[in-house]
């Protein structure tokens, strides 16, 4: 079984631990891709930054309340109310974390022996599933660059399809050169 948080999984036979809703019985998943882990660093940093004042209150309540008691907040709210406000604030911060995690977790590209499927979540409440038969794939292209693209070896994959089918793209995936090569190999 592959790591459920993995960003790059290739199995020439079948990745058994992953399935999708429209998968046929004789359809096997060869390649499973997700955005690079490094794309999470910014929101994780922001999460820590936003949560730190509240965590300070948890670990040093006396210090924080002695400071608050000298401020205008002491006139506005009691200590109980302030604790509840911190709880509401932390719930908001948690929601920010949950949404960003979901955005990363449910942004995947799957290549099977029959087709290419792209699942993309657009927070907060939208997502789209795009698919193209392997026979419809006309061209595969990848781009890589930028400071982080070079440091973490990540880039974008573009799959051009024939006719009116929507083109498929996934951004900031690890090892774009290898992914490009594997998709080309899987084409009929």
């Amino acid at each position, binding site marked *: 079984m592959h790591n459920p948080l993995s960003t790059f999984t290739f199995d020439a036979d079948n990745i058994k631990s992953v399935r999708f809703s429209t998968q046929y019985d004789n359809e096997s998943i060869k390649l499973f891709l997700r955005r690079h882990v490094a794309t999470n660093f910014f929101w994780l940093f922001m999460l820590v930054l936003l949560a730190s004042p509240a965590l300070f209150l948890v670990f040093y309540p006396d210090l924080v309340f002695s400071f608050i008691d000298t401020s205008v907040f002491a006139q506005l709210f009691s200590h109980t109310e302030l604790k509840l406000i911190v709880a509401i604030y932390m719930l908001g911060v948690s*929601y920010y974390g949950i949404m960003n995690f979901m955005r990363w977790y449910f942004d995947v590209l799957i290549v099977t022996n029959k087709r290419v499927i792209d699942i993309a979540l657009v927070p907060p409440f939208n997502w789209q599933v795009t698919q193209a038969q392997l026979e419809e794939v006309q061209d595969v292209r990848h781009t890589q660059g930028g400071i982080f693209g070079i440091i973490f070896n990540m880039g974008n994959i573009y799959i051009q399809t024939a006719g009116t089918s929507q083109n498929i793209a996934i951004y900031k995936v690890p090892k774009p050169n290898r992914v490009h090569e594997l998709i080309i190999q899987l084409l009929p």
Partner: protein
Amino acid sequence: MTLNQIKEITNNPLAPSSDTGIKLPELGWITNLDPIDIVHWLFVAVLLLTTVSLALFAFLTLRQIRILNRVLKTPLAPILTLFALLYLILTIGTLFLSFTLWIRPLF
């Protein structure tokens, strides 16, 4: 009507001074409003709205995760659902506490 008469009717030591120009005793209640109270209740209204929104978002997120877990079936699906459920419980708990603290004393 003299200033003393207004003060008697409104029963408010802070009733209009001679230079405020407010003559109607019926408006005496305005002088009872404390700016601190106004700001406090404005904050409370915003906080209650935020809490209700968070509870609604938590419910929608739980539904969304359940649907997405059917679209993409991974081993992490039950854990994600559990986390979303826990978040929903926390938001409902906070909403309940908010109502207990701010709304219930009003009645």
